[in-house]
Every structure is written in C-alpha cells, then in structure tokens.
C-alpha cells in the first residue's frame, strides 16, 4: 500500500512537469495552429535561467590562500562571491534561494524570448504546412541547444533546492501510515503544488479576463473574431509569450530535481507531444489531465511487480498508452473533433 502511494506521489510531480510543458504546447496549437518543435527548448531555456542566475550571483573575486595549494602546486585561488562579501549573510541567503528567485528572472526573460520568437519567426509560418513549421522550429531547437552548450558546456550542472526544502516530508503519517513509511522529498511536493498554482493561474487568466475571453474566442473561430475588429494577432503574440513563460517556469523549478543540461530540449520534446495528443489537441484540460495520467501510469509501470509480469513495459508505457488512446478515442481524452486532423 505504501508502495502504491509513493508511486502516485512520484506520478504527480512527474505529471506536474509533463502537464506544464504540454499546457503551453497545446495553447500554441489551439490558438496559432503551430506545431512547435522548439517547445522543449523553451523548457530547457527556463532551466538555464536558474543556472544563469546562480552563476551571476556567484560572480566572485579571487584571493590566494596562504596555506592550501591548487592542483599545479600554486597557491589555491579562493573565490568569494561579491554578493556575500557585500551583504554577508543576506548574500548567502540569496545564493541559497537562487532557484526560486530565478522565477522572477524567468518570467520577463521567457516572455521576451517567446514574443521575439513569435514576431521574428513563428508568425511567418501560420499559413505554412505543418511539415515546414516542424522543420523550422526543430532547426531553432537545435540552434538554441547549441548556443546553451557553447556557454554552459554539455555536462549537467547541479542546482540545489533551498536548505528548507531539501529534506523530507513524512507524508504517510498524515494518512495514518507508520512514521517513515511514506517519506517524500519536500522539493518534489513544492514542485507539485507549484505546477498546480501555475495551471490554476493560466486557467483563471483565460477564463476570467477579457483578454482570455478574446483568446478563447479566437481559438474557436479566428476569422470571425478578426472580423469583429479585434486585433487577434497581437493577442496571440502575448499568448505565445505566456506559453513560453509556463514552459520556462516548469524548467526553473525542475532543476533541483534533475541537474539540467543542454539536451533537455530534445529529451522532453517527444514526451510533451505525446501528452498533448493523448489529452487532445488544443485542449487545456486534456493536456493537464493527460500529463498527470501519464506520469502516474509511468510510475506504476516501473514497479518490480509489474515489470516481472511484462518485461520492458516501463520502456514503452507512454507510447503504448498513446497508441491505445488514439485508436479508441481518436481526438484524445478531451479534444474537439476535427482539430489538426489533416
């Protein structure tokens, strides 16, 4: 029982990441009709916002140690971040909290990247075939990855959660299990709650604001909205920016769970497409529910009991589900009929 509960928890925070990436992707599908192969790269760029902020905070001056030697036998160079030197404990505190602090940096940066991408490239591809959209965004994804590699290298770069969130929460005790039976890392719970908050905000924004109403109307019938004299293009630019921010935030907060590297863009690309298709093209609710569903099923498929019954099932579960859903329910869990069918 505790094993199953733990796997559900695993599925939830994995699902949170899948849902956030897929959410932005499906918004772009729904509004702009664009197949964005660079969406995984946006997730990766978000993660590197956290890396960049930490290295900015750690810009250091160098002093030479009197006693210690470096690997060549020269006096060891000790690096002290300016920020610690100037602000003392507050500086250390800032570095400690660099990952959550990077959210503040990622929002404007990712918005800017998203808007630039849409204005500079994507808007020329609204009317072009999907194959060309795929090729151009795939090219962009490669370029973005390579640029990050030039600056940060190919190896993963460790990021740590703040001290407070580094420990474990004994989740099981609340539900009446023995103490220590169902412990869960605090940061992973934070990630799950964070993903819920972001998903909630996006839904609220689209549901309760005039802007959101126009966007939803545009998703339903773009031409009519245009005929009403509403500048739908400008709104769609902002929508693209928001999708980029959502993917970026998902990336920022994921860095303590998994050290980021430049290859993340490609790693999460296929998966996020599968999530979107399972949920239904252009369906926000579908993307979120499919994200959590696939996360949880993936966790269950990895259990020894299941694997001994069906060897290799954890390798293919995601794709197997996609195949089954698409055959049984062609438009995905919550998709509208006829979207992106040709």
């Amino acid at each position, binding site marked *: 029982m505790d*094993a199953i509960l733990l796997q559900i928890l695993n599925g939830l925070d994995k699902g949170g990441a899948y849902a956030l990436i897929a959410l932005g992707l499906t918004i772009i599908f729904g509004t702009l009709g664009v197949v964005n192969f660079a969406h995984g790269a946006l997730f990766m760029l978000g993660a590197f916002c956290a890396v960049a902020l930490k290295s900015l905070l750690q810009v250091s001056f160098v002093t030479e140690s009197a006693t210690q030697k470096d690997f*060549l036998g020269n006096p060891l160079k000790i690096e002290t971040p300016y920020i610690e030197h100037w602000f003392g404990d507050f500086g250390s505190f800032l570095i400690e909290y660099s990952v959550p602090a990077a959210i503040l940096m990622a929002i404007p940066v990712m918005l800017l990247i998203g808007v630039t991408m849409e204005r500079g490239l994507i808007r020329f591809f609204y009317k072009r075939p999907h194959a060309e959209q795929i090729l151009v965004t795939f090219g962009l994804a490669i370029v973005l990855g390579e640029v990050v590699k030039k600056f940060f290298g*190919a190896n993963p770069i460790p990021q740590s959660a703040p001290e407070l969130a580094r420990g474990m929460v004994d989740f099981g005790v609340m539900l009446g299990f023995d103490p220590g039976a169902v*412990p869960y890392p605090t940061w*992973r719970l934070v990630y799950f709650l964070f993903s819920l908050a972001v998903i909630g905000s996006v839904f609220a924004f689209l549901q309760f604001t005039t802007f959101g109403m126009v966007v939803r109307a545009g998703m339903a019938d773009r031409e009519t909205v245009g005929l009403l004299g509403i500048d739908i293009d400008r709104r769609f630019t902002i929508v693209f920016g928001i999708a980029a921010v959502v993917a970026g935030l998902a990336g920022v907060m994921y860095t303590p769970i998994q050290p980021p590297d430049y*290859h993340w863009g490609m790693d999460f690309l296929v998966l996020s497409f599968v999530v979107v298709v399972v949920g239904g093209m252009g369906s926000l609710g579908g993307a979120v529910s499919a994200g959590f569903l696939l996360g949880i099923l993936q966790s269950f498929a*990895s*259990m020894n009991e299941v694997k001994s019954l069906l060897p290799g099932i*954890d390798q293919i579960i995601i794709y197997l589900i996609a195949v089954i859903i698409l055959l049984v329910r062609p438009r995905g869990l919550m998709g509208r009929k006829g979207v992106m069918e040709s």
Partner: protein
Amino acid sequence: MSRSITNRRSLLKGSAAAGVALATPTIFTSQVWAAGYTNEPKGGSVTLGFNVPQTGAYADEGADELRAYQLAVEHINAGGGGMLETFSSKALKGGGINGKKVEYVTGDTQTKSDAARASAKRMVEKDGAIMITGGSSSGVAVAVQDYCQTAGIIFMAGLTHANDTTGKDCRANGFRHFFNTEMSGAALAPVLKNQFGSERVAYHLTADYNWGWSQEGSIQKYSEQLGWKTQAAVRTPLGAGDFSQYITPVLNSGADVLVLNHYGRDMVNSLTQAVQFGLRDKQVNGKDFGIVVPLYSRLMAQGAGENVKGIYGSTNWHWSLQDEGSKAFVKAFGEKYGFPPSQAAHTTYCQAILYADACQRAGTFMPTGVGEALKDFDFDGLGNGPTTYRGHDNQCFKDVLVVKGKENPSSKFDVLEVVEVTPRKQVEYGTDLLGCNKGSINNGAA
C-alpha cells in the same frame, strides 16, 4: 523472376566494371589498396585518427579526450614533456614516430555506433589515418574496433568499461588501456567489506543495456562472495531522466545498500535523486544506508554536485595521484588548459603514447609489428604503476583506484578522494574468464 534477376545481374556486373574503371584514378591516389598494409605512410608524416564524441551527452568528455590527444601529439613530436619524461620506455626521441611527424584528424562519434563507424571510415578511407583511437562508450568501442579489424587498422580504445570490449567482442587489432567492470568489482569488494561489513542487503539499479548488465553482474559476483545478499536488481531505461519511480521501492525494501550501475547523465540523475529521497542519511536494519557508484567519472560527478559526498566507487585514474607520472601529466595538461585532466583524458593520452612507442620500437606502422610490440608489454610511469598489456586479450592490467566523494572539496575539480589503490594482482583474472578469442591481427590490403 529468374529472368529479371539475370538481367539485373548482368547490369550489375557491367556497372561494377564501369565503376571500377571510373574509380581507377582515386584508387591509386587514396593509397588505400595499393600499399603493403592499409594506409602505409609514404611521406614525411603519419596521420592518427581521433574519434571522440563532440555532440550529445558526452561532448565534454570528448572535448577532454581531444585536449589530451593534442597534448600527446605535441609531446611525441617534441620527444619529451608530460608523461613521456616518466614513461619507462625511452624509444621515442622526438621528431614524431619512426622519423615521421605526427599529424591528426578528428571526428565526431555522436556516441552512436553507426556515426562512430562512419567517422572512423572517413578517417581511414579519405584522410589516410593509420590508427583510430578514442570514444566514450562501450557500444561505440566495440563497433569501431570491429571495423578496424576488418580494415586492417589498429584501434586504441578510449573510455570503455564493459567486459565485452576485451572479452566476448575482443579483436586482435583492438587494444584497451582502461579497466573493466570485472576489475571494478574485484577492487571495490574489499573496500566495501571494510566500510559496510559483510552482512548487507544490496539493491541494484541498472542501466538496461550491455554495460549496465556487465557492471551489475560483476558487483553481484564479488559482493555475494563477501556474504552480501542481493535484494533486487532492477533495470532502468537508458536516459530515464527521473528515477524516482525506481528509487521509492528501495525505501521500504529492507535493502541497506543501493548500487547504481549507471554512467554519465544517468548516474548524475539517479544519484542526485537517491540523495533527494534521503537514502544517504537513512538507517536500515540499524546500519547506515550505503550508496555505491561502481564506475565514477570525475567530470560527470561534478554534475551531481554535493550529492557525491561520501559515495564510494572506482575509477581508472585521478589527478590527485602523487606518483611522478601523474604529477607530470597533470602539470603539462594544467599548464596548457588551466584545469586538471579527467580519467578520459588520461587513458586517451596513454593510448596515444603507447601506440607511438610501440611503432617506434617495432620500427614500422604495420599492425602486426605494432601488435607484436604491444604484446605482453610491461611498462611503468604512466600514472597507474607497473602495467602490462596482456597479449591474450589486449587488455591492460594495472592498479585500480577506489574513490569516494570528498566531504570538503577545495575547488570544483576536487570532487573525489582516493580511498585505496587496489593492487594489480587483486584485480587480475584468468585468460578464459571473459571468453576472448581475438583471432589474428589484420594488416589490411596488401
């Protein structure tokens, strides 16, 4: 049907003849087929082929290998510097190998067998490389080694740790300086016994491919000889990213040691996440929970940051070693590039030097001659103590380092500390253990 086949066959024959005629000029200029052995160097220089991952997850490791090769070429051409000063064989006197200046070409393996073979073929067929070396995975090493055997080229393997490279898939033309999972198991076992005692229950997470299984098998074999039990050995997909669904079952399984048979990004991720789930600070059966990473790479371990502290593993070489060879190499490398070399850089540098020295001693670049010079060759001064290139399977036998993550690192390179240097005789194994039947060395087209 049969008629169409005859037609096609005659067409084939005709076009093949036409092809040979067309290709005639290139056949002679490329020298591939006209020499006494493949790519016999005719001018004043000789070309080596450095085949390393330049894109993909191991790009940084590949970049470090390339740096080491460039350094080795400098030293060979100069006849001194670095570990050439401490190397026991003094055959290389400068001016390259056998009086020919050493030049090199580079290629990208992409850590894929197909791409690596294509890249190696380009170096042999187009650039006239006389030897291929490098790589950062066993799949690539086996694939390229197999090609080199058929082409009549010497292959000096880079970072490859699976037993198969000099075991089941060994080839007469392929040579490995790096150690393997069998040696890792043999070297780790006594240290694990000291550290964790002999009554332990191990839980393996294993990357689901050849190297992972090989590693899992070796650790199981040696840990069960200590009296350890194996609770479970779970296979994880390569590149899983998030390993939480494999780690949570460990929590309440009753196991008190977790063995992570992962390398590269998988190792970084699974170790980071195992520590996240509190395994490093856990108590099970009244004992401190232990985590073991059988194959450590310092370069990759940096990616796991603080999570490596106190975690045991084995490695081929580490820059903090204090023997003369290691010190000379670290000094030369550090002065040129500004940071210490990785184990990948070390093994590739050694391979380049060993090849050059063997050619010089043999007085030829002919693969059979080089193979004869390397056969059961004893040497010292390359950072691992007295070493032998065993003739039976072209595997180097040398001391193995057991390391653990350092508690108080003084710099970002200072990640590991050497716990023990397991002497060579403890990790040696019989010639029949891994089933190598390497055949004979191929000189290629005569």
